[in-house]
């Protein structure tokens, strides 16, 4: 410190009245609050799915009832997985459209994403009913409980994603999604990609591991 020990000259303090001091206008990291919040939420989701995937790995060999490879239809699930992965592509196209201010195109791609997600969910519902017909009820064995909980939980995540996508399309159609709010689309996209990536892990762990 200085030797003179005078009072420190009045430092220029940031004016609290400036709109720039308002939340969301600028941030220390340069990442907006909502986007950082979504990243943190997804980090937390990793642990949630981590717990369920671990449980599945522990229980994937049942003591009774049909086992994984008695019921799984790998070609069918591969196709529905491919559909879900393609929805990530359409999601990217939607984000790129809004950044180029092409609202109509964005709505088309968002709708396509939601549709592909819905096809995946329909496939999952079909798959579940087929498994139940083959004798794999939710309470049949430790494997069946773990399988339905893990994949069903993922299905719920996809469904929530579809609801968000449809809400975005509706908002945009009513003009409530102008360019400066394009980040909302990007953030929903982050969630959607995460759900896809989790499916890649689940598909590998549940369906492909012998």
């Amino acid at each position, binding site marked *: 410190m200085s030797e003179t020990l005078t009072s420190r000259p009045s*430092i220029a303090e940031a*004016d609290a009245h400036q709109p720039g001091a308002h939340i969301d206008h600028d941030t220390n990291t340069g990442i907006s609050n909502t986007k950082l919040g979504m990243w943190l939420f997804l980090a937390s989701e990793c642990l949630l799915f981590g717990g369920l995937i671990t449980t599945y790995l522990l229980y994937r060999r049942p003591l009774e009832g049909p086992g994984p490879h008695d019921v799984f239809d790998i070609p069918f699930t591969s196709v529905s997985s491919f559909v879900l992965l393609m929805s990530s592509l359409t999601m990217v196209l939607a984000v790129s459209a809004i950044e180029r201010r092409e609202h109509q195109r964005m709505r088309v791609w968002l709708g396509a994403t939601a549709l592909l997600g819905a096809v995946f969910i329909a496939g999952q519902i079909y798959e579940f009913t087929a498994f139940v017909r083959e004798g794999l009820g939710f309470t049949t064995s430790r494997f069946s409980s773990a399988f339905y909980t893990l994949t069903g939980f993922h299905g719920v995540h996809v469904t929530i994603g579809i609801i968000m996508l449809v809400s975005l399309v509706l908002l945009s159609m009513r003009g409530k999604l102008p360019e400066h709010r394009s980040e909302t689309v990007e953030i929903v996209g982050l969630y959607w990609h995460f759900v896809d990536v989790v499916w890649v892990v689940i598909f590998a762990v549940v369906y492909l591991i012998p």
Partner: protein
Amino acid sequence: MALTEERPLALPSGDVETDYSPTGVFTRPTADTGWRSWITTVDHKKIGIMYGATAILFLIIGGLEALLIRLQLWSPNGTLLSADLYNQVYTMHGTTMVFLVVMPIGAAFANYLMPLQIGARDVAFPRINAFSFWVYAFAGIFINTSWFLGGAADGGWFMYAPNSGVVFSPTHGIDFWNIGLLIAGIASLTGAVNLIVTVLNMRAPGMTLMRMPVFTWMTLVTQFLLLFAIPVLTSAQILLMMDREYSANFFNVAKGANPLLWEHLFWVFGHPEVYLMILPAFGLVSEILPTFARKPIFGYPFIVFSGVAIGFMGWGVWAHHMFVSGIGPISVTTFSLTTMFIAVPTGVKILNWTATMWGGKLRFSAPMLFSIGLVTMFTIGGLSGVMHSVAPMDTQQTDTYFIVAHFHYVLFGGAFFGFMAGFYFYWPKAFGYMLNETLGKTNFWLMLLGFNLTFAPMHVLGLQGMSRRIYTYSAGYGFEVWNKVATVGAFILASSVALFIFNIFYSKSKSKNLPPVGADPWDARTIEWMTPSPVPAYNFDPTPTVSRVDDFWYRKYGETKDGKLVRIAKTEDVVQKRTDGKGIHLPSPSYWPIVVAFGLPIVGYGIIYSLWLALIGGIIVVGGIYGWVMEPPDDPDLAHDDDHGPESHSSSDGAAHDVASESESSTEAKEVETVV
């Protein structure tokens, strides 16, 4: 740190909100006072106060449960509670104290203080902040309604499965516990996201990470622990819910379930949980000890990084809760070693606090006494904790009262003493009047006495072999004397808490005849003390520019060459004056957080009783979320009555950035001045 990175912002100045008409189905509420202002508030300070008040209500409930336990154990063959009721009482005592008292008081301090300590206007997501609080409050009420609906949970706070299955606990108690904590988990998760974003994104100019007050650092670590620990508990609880409500086989041993699954998942959550309960208290005493020793905290980077180290290492010690469960010698050895290692960063903190006090001009005010109470009592609890890392010894102590003694020394002697210190220290800042010092000191000595009388004998009882969770014991084992001492201690402890609550009202009534406390009654060090007391809604006007750790202190004091402290400015000249706050843009209140939060317990009742009820709850939640999203972002007429065009916006942004980057390289105030 690149605070100045140039990139287009989400809302580039200029073309904002002009062509954008928010969907204004409902206008935002505007009340500033009265009950409406509390249920619609998004102000982090009011939310912090509500967290604290609600937690103290639950503290009284959990405390009464503790007194019931102690009365039951007063003499051999106690008959006050039946075995079944005793199980419910100790389960709810643990659950209440952990999830509804200690964690929320930590959240109360984090909410109230952290934005002030980093010079922010509010948290990153003010409405989500209100949502977190209401979810917590409703979850707490939801869990406790089980008392009136067929009995509370009875499986211990860790609720080991399969013991917590329908076969062994057919009442709805565990369903309430399980679903209630799932709901409370939503509160913790949203709160964690919110507070982490706030710390990372919303610091005042010049407030780099290594200039943040220690409490803010500990809040950051705590919230990261919550962010990653809560979902593990959630996944375990989803499994338990599937088992109990829908007859899944996760814990059905007949179908090959692994009884260790719950234990592992629970303690992967549970051990970070104990650190996230203690770290906020560590942060508080790290603020209080330097203030009353009139010395900077000893080894600021060490105390920060030991906190971060605890945050990381806390993930690698969970299985020391399971040494007797047969996890095998390799696992036992590994977790023994990691448990011994984690004592190191904790020891670093104890050393730092001691060295902070060493040679300081100590003032033994009530907050200081409670802080020293934490340092000493936590050390005892920490030492008995290290004993548990020695597996053979742990085998002897598992499920005895020795464990009960240990975790009460760390959680009550550690966390709660820290919170009491925080209450006494920050009371004038939050409410504008001091708590009575004489009563405060009496409060401390009574609490210290009662605490040690209650829990020190439990060490002896545990070593004598008295097991935990038994509702009674026979005469002749030598348990009588120490149980009587513990019961007397519990009542002294309860009276000390009652004295604290009395002190709140007593000091409030006396304060009317006293002069106002002023912004800085303790001659404190960090920038939250620059705000007027009680803190105005807008927090800071102007926003301070920070140039070092303990910035506020060095606005008041300088040091001579030989290290003597010299006052360089009057406190009154340094602290901020209360302004009318006009034109400072604050987030508007909202109805929706409480609406969405209200739907969640209804879904909970629905899962237990009838899916129709769950549907109604679900409609409230989803409808509330849509209302939330459609809500106009702000009331344009509110707090915007001075004109600032887009031009002033962008230019002042730049200035703030420059100050931030420049003060990084130099602590000399003059240089900061030349920049602007």
